[in-house]
């Protein structure tokens, strides 16, 4: 069965600092991988996705993520955090069967200090 682990429940960074949010997955093959962001009072929004090919993927809002098969990881990064990035971030895996079901991690809450 697939599973997603986000080991950091809450991360606090200063504005302008770099950011890395961790995500580890468990799946029998290479799944589809996603990062979603949930801002207060808003629905989840897709930041980026990985299906195959280049293991470094670029997303919206200056985010990127790197797929590392050997580590079963898909960590999210941003070189310089803005105050508006404060939100909850969810890593998710999808089955490469076309079913489009997503399995989400428990999320990491990001606080940005001015």
């Amino acid at each position, binding site marked *: 069965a697939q599973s997603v682990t986000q080991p950091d429940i809450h991360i606090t960074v200063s504005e302008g600092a770099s950011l890395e949010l961790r995500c580890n997955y468990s799946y029998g093959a290479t799944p589809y991988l996603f990062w979603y962001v949930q801002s207060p009072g808003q629905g989840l929004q897709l930041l980026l996705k990985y299906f195959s090919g280049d293991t470094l993927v670029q997303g919206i809002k200056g985010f990127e993520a790197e797929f590392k098969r050997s580590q079963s990881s898909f960590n999210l990064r941003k070189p310089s955090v803005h105050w508006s990035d404060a939100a909850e971030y969810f890593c998710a895996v999808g089955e490469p069967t076309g079913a*489009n079901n997503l399995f989400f991690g428990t999320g990491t809450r990001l606080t940005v200090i001015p």
Partner: protein
Amino acid sequence: EAGVVQSPRYKIIEKKQPVAFWCNPISGHNTLYWYRQNLGQGPELLIRYENEEAVDDSQLPKDRFSAERLKGVDSTLKIQPAELGDSAVYLCASSPRGSGKTGELFFGEGSRLTVL
């Protein structure tokens, strides 16, 4: 383009009462999902529709939960009777036809249920 619309945004009920949530997906999206998000957790799939057909309802507690998607557009999720443990945010999402590889689900803002 209008996004996924859900109502009500907030609902407070006594246990054993019924409750219903409504979702209007993005126009043209044939796949509709209901997720439940407990406090401090990620969303968990309850049911997925392809047009009018519920193609995955394995995680829906069928003794008290029901859902329908008449005419393959709007959907309603019902809980009867509600229990204390049903307090959560109920998220609706939709995705367009042929998006099996895109994985981009468009989520509504959610309906927050509090059962007292």
